[in-house]
């Protein structure tokens, strides 16, 4: 094990924000269980929350469903993805009941913290509520693809 810092997600919470104020969350790309677990593992290796590894997935909030507002978030944070998903309304409420939604790091970043018990079910809910895949209007299709 190397020396170095251990990071606490508690230290990265934004004050004055709660899930009650959430209108819309965005995820770039088409998620799979494997991809979500990979991101959860990366976060867990870096951060703890309440003394245990923080297994969570990142999302970005938009203040409204207005296309201009959504596109601004896509441009700032998710422009590299060809597609994205919107989580709002009843699906957002279902997500909030399956995971702990935390306002983390800098606005508009949020973390969906997976539960220690019932992670598999929470992931299934996450994938179920993501909604239809949408074309990202700010995405610029490359001529060269990755190897």
């Amino acid at each position, binding site marked *: 094990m*190397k020396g170095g*810092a251990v990071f606490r997600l508690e230290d990265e919470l934004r004050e004055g924000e709660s899930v009650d104020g959430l209108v819309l969350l965005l995820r770039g790309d088409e998620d799979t269980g494997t991809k979500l677990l990979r*991101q959860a593992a990366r976060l867990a290796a870096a951060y703890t929350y309440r003394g245990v590894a923080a297994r969570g997935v990142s999302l970005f909030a938009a203040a409204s469903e207005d296309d201009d507002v959504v596109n601004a978030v896509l441009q700032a944070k998710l422009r*590299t993805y060809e597609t994205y998903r919107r989580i709002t309304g009843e699906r957002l409420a279902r997500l909030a009941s399956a995971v702990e939604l935390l306002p983390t790091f800098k606005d508009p970043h949020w973390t969906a913290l997976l539960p220690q018990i019932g992670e598999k079910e929470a992931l299934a809910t996450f994938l179920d509520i993501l909604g239809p895949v949408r074309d990202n209007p700010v995405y610029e299709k490359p*001529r*060269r693809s*990755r190897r």
Partner: protein
Amino acid sequence: MDEEKISPDMEVDFHNVDGTDLVWGWMTDAYHPEVVGVGNIIVVADESALAMARVAELVEHENGTIVRLEILPGRVDDYLDVAVRVLAGSPA
């Protein structure tokens, strides 16, 4: 002619943005750790998503080295086009 393909230097998740407002990842996700040095320009990828990035900071952590990345504007294509053009000495 075969389509040109881009081999990224490192895998990241572009959703992973921390309090510095930079994208972060783990050095263990670099295909070429030797090029992931502070100030270097590298190509990062999340599955099919690609971007140019500048390595902003390396942070030692109990579980390894965290790489903080400034994602640069534009597409990787744009940078490669400039490189090809200037190497060829053509203004077009």
